[in-house]
């Protein structure tokens, strides 16, 4: 009977035991797992609020909760999901784990800062949790003034403080990634040999660095306005509520690219691996990440078309919003071209890739409808917008995240997950997702406004479909939680490279030792040097 070889080998999980070795770790891999734990908790919290929202919306009348409570439900769903799940998800879990490994480094540039980032995130989350349990907040995740500063009677300040604090976690993570990628690449690893996952995280880090501080100071101004009635955004004193919206969206629009770019990085890696082909148009995909980061900062006014923003500014923002779609489309074309004549297989990560490509495309195209000024006047604040961003963030970003979790699960845990269950839950998620959100496009087009707990009778059928879909989606998300946790104990031990993938991270044992590499690797080949489709798989 063969002993489990891992029982004798030391790696980053078993090198130290005890809670102190985890809470005081500076190992980027352990920190990634700390993040995995906390963001999963916040995801479930956000999911709980979504369940309550969808429950209320099953019937036209507002009969499950009062409207004030409903306002809190969708607000806290948005806050938990955006700030505490989506923004950290891929970067803080997969990025933290993989960025040093993919570039042949022993750790990130600033390991202690990395740990501090996690503590900052957790403290911010705790503030927000406190605010939630002590009454909640009902301003919408966008906390527009003057409602948030003057009229709302809810816990705006604690949530604002929580988000302010957590923002620094994001900033420090981005800072760490940028310096690491610039200064700690292995010999021979030139910029254009880097995995596209790295390019994606570099671009997302630029956004974290440049955007987050602006929302941070905006939160400070809102807090000052609310606490001291100083009137920065108060029309009675000459303040302009729209100025708040400018400052808020300057960050919050690029924030959506923080959410999607790292997921796109995952898609590049997984697509190449399960097509056994290098990513088509590597340079284009790399530069498109930078282009998204750059142009993504120029479009925020498309959230403000009906806010009394000048129509000339709106015109500029509208055109730029069309332009920002182009680099995303470039990626989709290049991934598709990668698949063409590839040796394709349908492991679970690849199923999530297919889901991503299709659903992200739908979400992206519907964004064009919204970027168009005339159409947006009718669709603004309707369920069309809700469907649009859920297609991108859930159908896109979360699928990429789950695909990445599955793809690198053997490397992270040293265990294989159950492929059967993986494929089943991917399918359930795909079906549940579409059933939830496709009807919402129709609802929005028909005129149902968002953020209302009651609606006209004629919208009920579609809402019921949406709620049914949401219950399926919820189940779909619970299944991986179960089999992934199960696999950590009972899963088949993973080989170093179960997928036959290219990349420095796959040249280490599963799980890796604490310092990743026994000696610094030297890179001599291009990225994704998979054999051509004519030659048998290596």
């Amino acid at each position, binding site marked *: 009977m063969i002993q489990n070889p891992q029982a004798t080998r030391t790696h980053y999980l078993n090198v130290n035991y005890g809670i102190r070795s985890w809470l005081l770790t500076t190992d980027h891999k352990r920190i990634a797992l700390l993040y995995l734990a906390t963001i999963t908790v916040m995801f479930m919290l956000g999911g709980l609020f979504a369940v309550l929202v969808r429950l209320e919306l099953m019937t036209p009348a507002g009969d499950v909760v009062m409207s004030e409570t409903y306002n809190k439900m969708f607000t806290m769903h948005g806050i938990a999901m955006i700030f505490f799940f989506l923004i950290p998800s891929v970067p803080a879990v997969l990025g933290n784990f993989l960025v040093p490994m993919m570039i042949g480094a022993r750790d990130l540039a600033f390991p202690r800062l990395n740990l501090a980032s996690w503590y900052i995130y957790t403290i911010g989350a705790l503030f927000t949790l406190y605010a939630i349990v002590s009454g909640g907040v009902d301003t919408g995740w966008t906390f527009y003034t003057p409602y948030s500063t003057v009229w709302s009677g809810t816990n705006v300040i604690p949530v604002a403080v929580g988000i302010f604090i957590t923002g620094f976690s994001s900033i420090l993570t981005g800072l760490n990634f940028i310096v690491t990628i610039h200064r*700690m690449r292995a010999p021979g690893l030139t910029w254009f040999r880097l995995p596209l996952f790295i390019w994606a995280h570099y671009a997302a880090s630029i956004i974290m660095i440049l955007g987050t*501080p602006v929302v941070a100071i905006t939160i400070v101004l809102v807090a000052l306005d609310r606490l001291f*009635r*100083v009137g920065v955004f108060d029309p009675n004193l000459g303040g302009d509520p729209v100025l708040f919206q400018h400052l808020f969206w300057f960050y919050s629009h690029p924030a959506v690219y923080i959410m999607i770019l790292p997921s796109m990085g995952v898609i590049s890696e997984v697509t190449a691996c399960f097509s056994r082909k290098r990513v088509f148009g590597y340079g284009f995909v790399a530069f498109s990440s930078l282009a998204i980061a750059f142009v993504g900062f120029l479009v925020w006014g498309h959230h403000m078309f009906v806010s009394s923003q000048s129509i000339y500014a709106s015109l500029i923002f509208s055109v730029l919003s069309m332009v920002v779609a182009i680099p995303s489309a470039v990626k989709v074309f290049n991934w598709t071209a990668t698949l063409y004549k590839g040796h394709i297989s349908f492991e679970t990560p690849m199923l999530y890739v297919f889901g991503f490509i299709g659903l992200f495309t739908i979400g992206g195209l519907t964004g064009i409808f919204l970027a168009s000024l005339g159409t947006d006047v009718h669709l603004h604040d309707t369920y069309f917008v809700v469907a649009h961003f859920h297609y991108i963030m859930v159908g896109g970003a979360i699928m990429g995240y789950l695909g990445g979790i599955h793809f690198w699960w053997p490397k992270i845990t040293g265990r294989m997950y159950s492929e059967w269950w993986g494929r089943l839950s991917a399918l359930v998620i795909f079906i549940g997702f579409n059933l939830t959100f496709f009807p919402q496009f129709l609802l929005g087009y028909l005129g149902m406004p968002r953020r209302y707990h009651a609606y006209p009778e004629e919208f009920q059928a579609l809402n019921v479909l949406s709620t049914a879909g949401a219950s399926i989606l919820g189940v779909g998300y619970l299944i991986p939680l179960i089999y992934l946790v199960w696999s950590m104990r009972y899963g088949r031990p993973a080989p170093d490279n179960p997928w036959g993938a290219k990349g420095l991270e796959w040249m280490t044992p599963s799980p890796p030792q604490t310092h990743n590499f026994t000696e610094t690797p030297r890179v001599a080949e291009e990225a994704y040097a998979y054999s051509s489709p004519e030659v048998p798989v290596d």
Partner: protein
Amino acid sequence: MTETHPGLLHHFDDAAQQKEASTLGMWTFLITEILFFGGLFAAYVVYRTRFPEAWAAGSHHLDITLGAVNTAILIGSSLTMALGVHSSQIGRNRLLIAFLILTVVLGGAFLGIKAVEYHHKYEEHHVPGPAFSYPGPIAGQVQLFFALYFAMTGMHALHMVVGVGLLLNLIRQARRGRFTPAYNTPVDMIGLYWHFVDIVWVFLFPLLYLLGRH
């Protein structure tokens, strides 16, 4: 990979790489600060364009002498900081400590004068909020000016306080002989931070004190 000096951390290949990483990291952080203060500058520009009269009036009620003196003090503290870094580069530890102390003193003087100015504003009922009072129809807009005045100088002062704290810690470490010509990165980095905070004031001073003088 051997320990060449006490500061080398295990994940770096050599001291040069570590220093380069630290430098790039600090500059990246300072850039986030540019955007952080940038939000306040944006609010300032928007409202100044809208309410030039109120901005001129508000600016007139600030003490230009104290502001100018503070500017000179802060520039002086940047000089002493730079000289401190220089001292650490040539291994003059006692000189380093002296310059760091001088920097702290000048920083403290700046904050002291700021406190005096804030007190004046408080006495004149120019602190925004329920106690604010200003004669005439543009009172609301003047309150906006003072809201931004306190937000911008207050945030700046907060950064100064943090800076003084960092400097005090640096003095403590210097007295223990931590810094040598081979390893003075923390002095260098905190120097960068201090100069940046000075630069913010270089812009705050004309924007708040000078633009309504004539």
